[in-house]
Structure formats: structure tokens, C-alpha cells
């Protein structure tokens, strides 16, 4: 049973090692960009050292000969992982299991369906498979040993061309791994109000900013901030939901948070059914007050 973890960058390598160590199988890491993560217990780190990530067609064609020699190939279920891994699975004609939250044994896994309202136990009936997993289910990896580094330069083949790309702005922590997340919903009115109220509280707490689909669709928040079934899955120590009703689709993305705080003007909003602390209040009063009191 040998496992290859595909890490898109050095930060991703740490999350990959968490899964690798939890699996109790020896694992290698294939790292596309950044300094090779040699202290995470991998047998070896296959380093591609690319200046930027290739589009999925290049990625899959180049990685196919490397992936082929493993029994399991896994990656974080980020949007880049979801884009590229199934293509590789298609090229090799292996089955794939997405969004694993728990490893039962080498053939059996737990994964959510229907926006997290059901958990399924699934079993592989094939010797080889691709997997994506959700970071929240796997504890931070131990530092371990000195892995060898193998530098490879695969042949690149594809026809897609990237014309432009927005890169992460930095400044705030990454939403998917942040310890504190402050999210806002539809009532935030416009981008400036959202940034001032939700962004302001997030900054006071050193946290990341999230949003509902309703907020993103109406142009109040950027698309990469969407949390939920079809956005990012978060699992911070503290999640603050302001002006969010608590739809199944949004809750699918926040269920693994340690403490959920809801601020909503409607005392009957479904978000209060899962919140550890609920404040029935107008967010236009509560958020600035909270920010001001926490900044001190």
C-alpha cells in the first residue's frame, strides 16, 4: 500500500502530511511549487519546483507516469485539487473518492453527501484510487525525519493558455486554515460596508473573512470568500456569522468549527439552532461595538 500526496505548495504539503500520517501508511509527497517539505515524515519529496501552477490538462498529462506507480494518490479538496485530480483519475481510469473526512481502513472512508446532511461510509472495489480529503478531519502532522528530495522535470503537454489570474492578496490568513473566521451575509448591503464591518472585526481578531453565497452573488463579497457546500469548508476555533440565516448549504461549510457565534436580528433564524452563542441584535450596531471593544 503506497500513498502519494500531491501538494500544490509548501503550506499544502503540511496539510497533506496530516492525511499521510493519519493513514498510517508510508507516503511520498509530490510538491509542485515552493521549498520541498522534507521534515514531515515523507519517504521522499518529489520536487517539481515550478514558478506557477499549470492548467489541469498539463498537470494531468505530466503527472500520469509518476502517479501510476502508487496505489493511492491524494490531495486536499481545494478548488485546484478538485480541478486537476479527477482529470488524472480519468487518464488512468482509476476510481476516485472526494472530500474524505475520515479514514476507516485502506479501502473504506467516510465522506459527506447532500451538503453534509448525510455521512456515507464508502468502500473501494478496485486496487488503485484517487482521493481528496478535507483538512479539518486530520490533526496537524508531527515533524519527523529528513526526507530525501528527488527533483523531476516532467514533460509538459497541453493546449490551455492562462490569460490572467488573480493571486491571493495576503494580509489576512487563509480562510480554509484560519483559527478565527468572521463571515457576513446578505444584509451587509455593499462591498464597502462588508469590508468595514466584517473585515474590521476579522482584523481586530487576526482572522479571515468569509461570506455566504447570497453576499457573493450580490457583489458584496469576493467569490473566493464563499463558505459552504460549493465554496470553502472551514474549521476555525471561532466562527462568527453575522447576518447569516443558516441554510443547509452554508452550514455544510462551518459544522466543524469549535465555537460558532451567530449575530442575527431574527431570533428564530435557523443559525441559532447550531450556534454555541447567539446574539439577537442588529449587526450594524453589534459588529462595530464588538470590533471596538476587542481592539482595545
Amino acid at each position, binding site marked *: 500500500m503506497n500513498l502519494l500526496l500531491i501538494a500544490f505548495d509548501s503550506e499544502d504539503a503540511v496539510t497533506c502530511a496530516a492525511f499521510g500520517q493519519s493513514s498510517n501508511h508510508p507516503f511520498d509527497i509530490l510538491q509542485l511549487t515552493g521549498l520541498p517539505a522534507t521534515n514531515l515524515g515523507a519517504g521522499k519529496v518529489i520536487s517539481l519546483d515550478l514558478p506557477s501552477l499549470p492548467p489541469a490538462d498539463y498537470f494531468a498529462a505530466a503527472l500520469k507516469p509518476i502517479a501510476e506507480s502508487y496505489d493511492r494518490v491524494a490531495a486536499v479538496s481545494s478548488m485546484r485539487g478538485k480541478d486537476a485530480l*479527477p482529470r488524472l483519475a480519468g487518464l488512468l481510469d482509476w476510481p476516485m473518492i472526494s*472530500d474524505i473526512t475520515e479514514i476507516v481502513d485502506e479501502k473504506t472512508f467516510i465522506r459527506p453527501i*447532500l451538503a453534509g446532511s448525510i455521512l456515507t461510509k464508502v468502500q473501494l472495489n478496485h486496487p488503485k484510487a484517487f482521493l481528496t480529503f478535507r483538512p479539518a478531519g486530520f490533526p496537524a502532522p508531527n515533524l519527523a525525519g529528513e526526507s530525501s528530495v528527488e527533483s523531476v522535470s516532467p514533460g509538459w503537454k497541453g493546449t*490551455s493558455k492562462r490569460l490572467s489570474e*488573480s493571486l491571493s492578496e495576503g494580509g489576512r490568513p487563509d480562510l480554509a486554515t484560519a483559527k478565527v473566521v468572521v463571515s457576513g451575509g446578505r444584509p451587509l448591503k455593499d462591498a464597502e460596508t462588508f469590508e468595514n464591518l466584517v473585515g474590521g472585526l476579522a482584523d481586530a481578531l487576526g482572522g479571515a473573512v468569509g461570506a455566504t453565497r447570497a453576499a457573493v452573488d450580490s457583489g458584496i463579497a469576493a467569490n473566493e470568500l464563499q463558505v459552504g457546500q460549493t465554496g470553502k469548508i472551514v474549521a476555525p476555533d471561532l466562527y462568527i456569522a453575522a447576518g447569516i440565516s443558516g441554510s443547509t448549504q452554508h452550514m455544510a461549510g462551518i459544522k466543524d468549527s469549535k465555537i460558532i457565534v451567530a449575530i442575527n436580528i431574527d431570533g428564530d433564524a435557523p443559525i441559532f439552532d447550531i450556534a454555541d452563542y447567539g446574539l439577537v441584535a442588529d449587526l450594524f450596531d453589534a459588529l462595530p461595538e464588538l470590533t471596538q471593544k476587542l481592539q482595545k
Partner: protein
Amino acid sequence: MKILVPIKRVIDPYAKVKPLDDGTGLNLSGVKFEINPFDEIAVEEAVRQKEKNPEIQIIVVSIGGPESEEQLRKALAMGADEALHVETTDQLDPSIVAKELTAVVKEQNPTVILLGKQATDNDNNQTAQMLAAQLEWPQATFASKIEFNDGKANVTRETDTGEEVLAIPLPCVITTDLRLNEPRFIPLPGIIKARSKPLTKLERQTSDQPRVEVLSYTAPPTRSAGKKVATVDELIAELKSKGALA
């Protein structure tokens, strides 16, 4: 130009679904079914492209039980020209669906395959990418804007860090994200009128068995309602006592 839009019949995304008591399946009594919302966005996008370029022909295809005809009829009512129904009650997984779609593509020779990024029942997000790999066509997943020109598709796609624009040559596979469009509402008479549009039944072309099997279905651990606090100060005090605030 021919656009093929594969669509899936799924449990109403707003339904509250529970597992059966013995965990062997889902309790679907009284649950409604819809076109997978992302596939509906794909149909809408194809229709909008056709409104700009009347030479576009739109074929929708669904692989599934007899009931899937309902979703195909709705897609026809939205503006698709023709429907194909690979009728089967077999258990399927994304890789089987991709293979069946490959067989349809070989017959139909579409220029573009446009489909949802994921189905909201099994949330797999695999079929389109597997299909693109099998056909060796380029792909653009999670599209929020699509423009066709000069034998190319320029696709704005949602990424972990924002957006990127990919130019991919045709033929290609594109998957839709939520921001691409808002599907039109089709009143019931529209669906009845679409009954005159052609719907062809097909048989499965492969005999693969699913390679991922669901052993059991359970409800996830529930979070329960916590405590209501009356003021911001009380909230801060509670969070401090839990160590959640410094």
C-alpha cells in the same frame, strides 16, 4: 456549433433528507427531484449562447431511470433543441457516467460539452474532468463567464484565490459555477409545450460496475443550540471564559 449539456436528476437541494433507520439508504418519501442546479445553469448558458448565435444546436443528455425524462423535458422547455435519454436503473459512479458520455460524444460530435461542476446529491465534482481526460479535450472548470470566438473558448473560472481566465481550443469541456447565470423560470405550460421536441431513448454502451460502493448512510453528529446572550459585553465575557478570545 453543437453544445452537449449532460444533466442529472437530483434530490431537491432544499429538501431535508434523513437516512433510513437501518442505514441502507435514504428516506426519500415525499422528496421532490430537480435538475441538478449546476446543470440547470449549464442549460441556461447554452440557451443564452444560442440567443447570441442562432446556429448553435443544443442537445441535452441524461443517464438514469425513466423519471429523468421529467428533467430532460424541462431542459427542452428552457430552450434545448433535442434530448437524449440513456435509460438505466443501474448503479452508476462518476467514472461510469464519464464513459457513457464518451460514447454519446463519439456519436454526436459536439464542439462543446457544458455541465455542472458537481451534482448536489453526491457532491463528487469528478464527472466532467474524467470525461475531458478520456476525450483528451482541454477543460475549464468552475466557469463564471464564457465567451466563444475563433475556435476558442475564453473562460473566466473561480479559483481558490479569486479568478483566472483560460483560453482553451475547441472542442472542450466546461463546468459551470453558481455565478455564471441565473436560470430562467419555466412555467408549467412551457414544459407541456416542449413535449413536441424530440427525445430519443438510448441504451447503455458500457457494462462497468461501480468501483466505489456505499456501505451505509448515517446522520452526521448534530450541533445543538447553545446559549443566547443579551449584549455584546456578555458575548465577550462568554468567549473569554471559553478561551476563545485573548
